[in-house]
């Protein structure tokens, strides 16, 4: 069983923050590819931008309300956040960039503790307190490594 991680972060509306969000979307795959390939425990990772809500029905609105990172990875999340931090580069940078444009102030992420706490604080899909998952479906129970082993 993999763990889902759904990071939802409301972002600032200023031009620079909005620009960082748009740029993050464009460079996301390229930035995380090498690290995620090496880790071999992530089933997929998607970054999406949530548009600002319309105020007038049917009238498009400019800019983004929030950034959403959805991923699904093998085994326990706690220890592997640590490993992602150790690997440095793309994944760490992507999370730090998201934190830097958060609407709710987040201290700059400089330590493992801050990294772990930030991710957990914005995760919309923490492991359920009781019973199994009620909001997560998985077609297969295998790990990425098990799938790749054929």
């Amino acid at each position, binding site marked *: *069983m993999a*763990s889902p991680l759904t990071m939802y972060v409301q972002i600032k509306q200023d031009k620079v923050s909005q620009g960082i969000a748009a740029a993050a979307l464009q460079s996301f795959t390229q930035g995380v590819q090498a690290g995620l390939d*090496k*880790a*071999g*425990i992530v089933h997929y990772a998607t970054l999406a931008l949530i548009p600002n809500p319309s105020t007038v029905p049917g009238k498009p609105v400019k800019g983004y309300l929030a950034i959403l990172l959805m991923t699904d990875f093998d*085994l*326990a*999340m*706690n*220890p*592997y*956040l*640590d*490993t992602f*931090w*150790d*690997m440095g580069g793309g994944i760490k940078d992507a999370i730090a960039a998201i934190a830097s444009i958060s609407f709710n102030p987040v*201290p700059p992420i400089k*330590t*493992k*503790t*801050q990294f*772990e*706490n930030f991710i*957990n*604080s914005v995760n919309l899909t*923490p*492991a*359920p*307190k009781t019973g*199994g998952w009620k909001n997560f479906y998985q077609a297969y*129970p*295998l*790990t990425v*490594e*098990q799938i*790749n*082993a054929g």
Partner: protein
Amino acid sequence: MLLNPNQPNRNNVQGLILRGYTHPCSCHLLFTFTGGNNFNSKAFFSDLYPKLQSAADWGNNKPASMLNIGLTYNGLSLLKVISPSDLTYFPSTFQNGPSDPGSQDSLGDVGESSPEKWWNNQGNAVNNKLHCVVHVYGMTSNDLDELVSQVTASATKNGLVEILPLAIKDNGGRLYQSIVQHDPAKIHFGYTDGISEPSMNANPSGNTSAETNNNFVIGYPKGSTSDPGPTGVDTASRFAKDGCYNAFRIIYQDVAAFNLFLKQSANNPEVKKKLSHLNLTEAETEEWLAAKLCGRWRNGSPLMLSPDKPEASTASAEDFMYGSSSGIAGADDDVPSSLKCPFSAHTRVANPRDQLLSGSEGTNGPPRIARRGMPYGADLKNGATTDDGVDRGLIGIFLCGNLAGQFEKLYSWMNFNNFSGKKIFNPRKPPQDALLGTRDLHSTIFPNITNTFTIPVSGTSAAESIVLTMPSFLTTRGTAYCLLPSILSIAKLAGIKKPKLSSQWG
């Protein structure tokens, strides 16, 4: 007090963190801050403070009795020394505690081990209100009893309520250290423990290492691979500095089942056939199997240095590797060593040393933890294969600076041996630690694990190996994540205005 920014002052660090004690008697008392009358934490900590032991060298004045103190996150939250907003700077793993599903994804406590059954079936009623653990040590049982009485009297006077983690029939429900086989170094199952530990050397130059004390003591991030936290300028970080986390885990050991397993396996025709060239007696085969499960013979000799029999000369040896000494180049250099020490042997999983790790494990090498535990519960009659109903096992004190990256990481490895992309580990059916795995074949957390343990004998293929089906020998009786705060932080809790602290660096 002098300040040295690069290494902890041993006078300010609780003793059990940087040094292993050899006091033969100890008792580990659990308390809640709620439910009593007139809770007065200041008076309680002030009563205990004179006996609080630091890590400073005690020279010839070994204390007859002493204590150390741990606080859970829930406990800390009630003490009002850290502002509520700053409390959130503690690592979320510590905040949520070990029964949280996020931690259970690594610890894998199910069935009789599940958090609802911890603490003698008191479960979450205790998980949520366990606030403080006092570790009391004595040179004699009288020394111990005297200090235990002082601590419990102060607790009662100051509105704390003692939590009994075991059934009353077992030592009054308290966690008293026991001596196994008349030898303080032994644990149940008959192994010698407390041999391989991280150096805990100071790391003033900030070289990267997993075993220096800045991977355990909070506040010295330079060069630390575990990066203990919090390390900001807030009240939580100031309180936590020079502290360390303790994963306090009580594990029942079914010694009769273990003995029976060894006996039955030694008489297994397949095992006998594959070991016939060794000409072992039944008792010797049992010892051979026990060594393979652990990676060390029961006297302590590591299989890597003494593959054929236990030797007094290697009984406390720590200096060996699994890969680099094989003479084989490349990623499989650590495979031949499995003929001596199987891949899933407990000590090889808990510290795979130079064994090649999978990409998902990063490049820092294996994390380390410091173990300060001891057995509880009386011995089972030597070699008995039927249980006598006595509760016995390990009072596990697993120290780390980062509960997720050290303790939980190793636990996830023990439950799912996927950390080293070896062909012998069929990734479709990964094995578990030979002593510690959950053996829960229907686990959704650890998918498709096998409950077999492979011991390479004449080669590493299945045909050349002994493959044993492993029962579970262990049940988790309870777990708490505690912060062992610095001496100055406990002085603050005790309301001591200007505590005297001399300096001893490193």
